[in-house]
């Protein structure tokens, strides 16, 4: 693997950040509609790291268990998108979405499914708008829900090793309610990154035209 594939120059990074901004803005708008509360987003972080350090970037900040809704995406570039939040936030999030009418028991029954659906809306909105900007189509898998620590969340991609490099994009989101917060994260392996760089270059060209 040449060095060139391992790096993004400043402009590419800016462009990628902007693409993620577009995606997560849509995701935040969706989340806002669902929970009917203010949602704030951080500036996206874009890092090229090993899979293991991607996990520890989130892991060192999270002591309790996590829930992740994950979706695979395939197309000119492929990888995995995740909506991650602390396990204790799960029910609050579902509660915020369905409102107060539903009983506790029904709510608990529905937690897993509601999380998958929420993740689906947020991640699809995010990836879909990015794909539109790049003028390519991405095929997205059905959402899955996983629980565990940060390593479990990231180790499901194919059979690549811990030491393989990935493009790791993540943002923090926080709902105006001191309980609910989490991350939207994307992991792409490096052959995808190479294709992504090409698409980003095209995107930059279109913008500058």
């Amino acid at each position, binding site marked *: 693997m040449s060095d060139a594939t391992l790096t993004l120059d400043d*402009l590419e990074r*800016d*462009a990628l950040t*902007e*693409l993620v*901004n*577009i995606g997560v*803005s*849509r995701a*935040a*708008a969706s989340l806002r509609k669902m929970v009917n509360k203010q949602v*704030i987003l*951080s*500036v996206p*972080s874009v890092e090229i790291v090993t899979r293991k350090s991607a996990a*520890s*970037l989130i892991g*060192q*900040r*999270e*002591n*309790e268990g996590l829930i992740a809704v994950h979706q695979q995406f395939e197309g000119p570039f492929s990888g995995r998108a995740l909506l991650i939040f*602390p396990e204790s936030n799960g029910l609050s999030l579902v509660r915020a979405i369905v409102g107060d009418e539903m009983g506790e028991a029904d709510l608990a029954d529905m937690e897993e499914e509601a999380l998958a659906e929420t993740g689906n809306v947020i991640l699809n909105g995010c990836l879909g*708008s990015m794909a*539109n*900007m790049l003028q390519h189509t991405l095929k997205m898998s059905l959402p899955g829900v996983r629980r565990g620590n940060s390593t479990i969340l990231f180790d499901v991609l194919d059979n690549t090793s811990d030491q393989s490099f990935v493009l790791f994009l993540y943002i*923090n989101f*926080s709902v*105006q*309610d*001191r*309980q*609910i*917060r989490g991350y939207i994260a994307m992991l792409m392996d490096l052959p995808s990154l190479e294709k992504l760089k090409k698409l980003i270059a095209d995107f*930059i060209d279109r*913008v*500058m035209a």
Partner: protein
Amino acid sequence: MRDDIVVARRQLELALDVAGAPCAWEWDIRRDRLVADARFAAITRQDAVALTDGTSTNCFFNSIHPDDLKRVKLAVAGIMAGSEIFSKDYRLLKDDGGYRWVHANGRAIFDEDGNPTMFVGNLVDVTEQKRITEELRVAQTAGGIGTFEHRVGWATITVSEQFCRLFGLHPARVIPVATLNELIHPDDRRIIDLSFPDDHQDVSSREFRIRRADNNQERWLTRRGEYVDDVDSAGQRYVGVVYDVTDARQVRDKLQQANDELAGIAHEREQFIAVLGHDLRNPLASMSAGLRVISKDATDQRTTRVLRLMGGSVQRMSSLIDDLLDLARGRLGDGISLNITKGGRVEPLLARIVNEILVAHPERLIATDFDVHRPVNVDHARLEQMVSNLLGNAITHGASDKPITLSAKTEGDLFELEIRNGGTRIPEAIMKRLFQPFSRGEENSRKQGLGLGLYIASEIAKAHGGTLNATSDDASTSFIFRMPLDCQ
């Protein structure tokens, strides 16, 4: 462009530079027109009149530094494609060929279908701010100071790079409050306590222990924060700084330990003196009794003279031991015990002390001045101890050709006694230690004592609820004892 307009614009630009005021723009996306105020026109080198009607966005892009143009265009493209928030720093060219840094904040307004229709925002000159921010960043890194900002009611906190370093975290702008709280020692206060119902954190500074996320090391940090009003949300933000105080604490702890040890040693020594003094008294008493017996039987002159000298020495030893015991009592906490005579008069006592001293020093002059109208409740033996000590000092250290005065008076609720002698000023360094035990007036003083006299005198003053002070100038030195008359 007409010259006068150019001049006017320059002036406006200058005025705006001083004010640093933000300027506003509105970008009608459907019509691709940019409408903005005169300040925006000035700062982007456009025609103010045309801009109030709307101009092509090309004019605006032309005012941007070529190195920043692509970044700005990318961010604008993001807005056109659905990004909500625009927040960018970039450079605008100036007429003189230089540039200024600006910060642009904007947001898109969407139609029902979610398409952006308007892009509105403001622009502010941050050239100076950027310089200060950079200086601050350098200072914070050098000083190891991390900064944070918490919007009340949110689970996340915005932090600086240095802040992350202090906690051993990978640098990030936004981190969950819970993450930080987890790193804090369970017995210490949380950095932001989300369980506080009104979110009111401590405004005073607070020290706490953390376990660093990277190496598990325990460190002490100090947090200082305060509340500021959040202009954007009408809510409040809790902003503050964090720095490492582990080393400072270690130094402080060591110093405390050393102090404790020293205090322990001093205490032991004083106890030793108390015991020693006590044990020396009995053999001395029998020596004194023995001398009295032998003196009666002594016949020859030589023996009588030697015995008298020996008696004087025993007397002196005994008074040294008394001093030592008084010192030990004062230092060991119980203070000097008193045997107060109520309703007694002090003038006869004072007159007797003066007479005794004059017998021993017939060459000196001691003037007295008594103005005592009320009974003074004192321990007569202790008062005698104090006054003879002070008079003895005055004779030893005062100018021999100047009279000594002893005055005593009652005034209001105070009894005041002053002993003044002529002579040169007592040096500052000696004045400072005057009432400390083992301090002596002169380095080479072979004269009596352990340097305990003034210490004991001041302890006697204290025991009476009073004070003993010294003043000294080029002509004279005076010691003043004051005590309240209602003292038990």
